């Protein structure tokens, strides 16, 4: 079942691009992470707070960290692409079969 038209989808994707690009172009900022700002807010409320537990493993450099984030996004996107390919492949195969065997068409 179609829930949004092709035109709507294109507009929605353009909307995502606009929402992300407009800040980058027009707003000056550090572009740090809000999660880190949350941590900074804790430190502002409790100066000198020391976390009582530290991560078991920390990516050794920002490069390795971005590698792992890219891997996470890449794996997810790969799975979505695979699923969409399978679903649409199955649909076209079914349609092709219906065409090649006209006897199956309901009268």
């Amino acid at each position, binding site marked *: 079942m179609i*829930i949004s038209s092709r035109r*709507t989808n294109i507009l929605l994707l353009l909307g995502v691009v606009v*929402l992300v690009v407009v800040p980058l172009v027009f707003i000056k900022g550090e572009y740090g992470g*809000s*999660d880190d700002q949350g941590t900074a807010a804790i430190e*502002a409320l409790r100066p000198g707070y020391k976390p009582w*537990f530290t991560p078991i493993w920390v990516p050794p450099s920002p490069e390795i960290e971005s590698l792992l984030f890219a891997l*996470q996004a890449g794996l997810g996107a790969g799975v979505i692409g695979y699923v969409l390919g399978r679903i649409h492949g199955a649909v076209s195969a079914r349609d092709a079969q219906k065409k090649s065997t006209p006897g199956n068409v309901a009268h």
Partner: protein
Amino acid sequence: MHIMEGFLPATHCIFWGAISAPFVIQGGRKLQRIMRDQPQMRLTLAASGAFTFVLSALKMPSVTGSCSHPTGTGLGAVLFGPPVMAVLGAIVLLFQALLLAHGGLTTLGANIFSMAIVGPWVSYFLYRLCRTMGLSIAVGVFVGAAFGDLATYLTTSVELAAAYPDAASGYVGAFLKFFGVFAMTQVPLAIAEGFLTVVVMNALSSKTHVLEELGLVRGQMS
């Protein structure tokens, strides 16, 4: 929304862990039931999990000059119900805690509660509300996904305020401080998440009977 490792007092970690655990267990059972009774849904289920995996990895720039990430839990919450997302979200958070030092094991319960429980339930509830009001599936998915995203960050602010009340303004003041950090950054990203969720949901359902089979629309199955 990730509360970093060691940044919640141990009692709070146990509290949020104890609250989240039953939801994750219930979700595990629901997941098993779907795999057994509707094996044709496995691919769609995988795509729902993968969507959270992708979106929670994307740190996007926002109007405040900071970056934040969407959660991607609205899609699965609408398609399969919120319990399933408790499990899928927990897997994502565990991955990030172990491999990215993002979030943490001690704060896992609190992070599961905000991203994998409250967010999906808000998405699901608002989607149903929109549908009851006669709005289209697309509008319902957009509203559900966008507000589920915001609800996740709101919950994180509550969790942080409960642990770090402000000396002068108390719990409410601390909540406003924490939510102030997240809110403005998150609004445009929540809208973007709503848009993306509609597009992906349409891609999954446009040529199939996924929505009919999952009972989201009444319709003939062929």
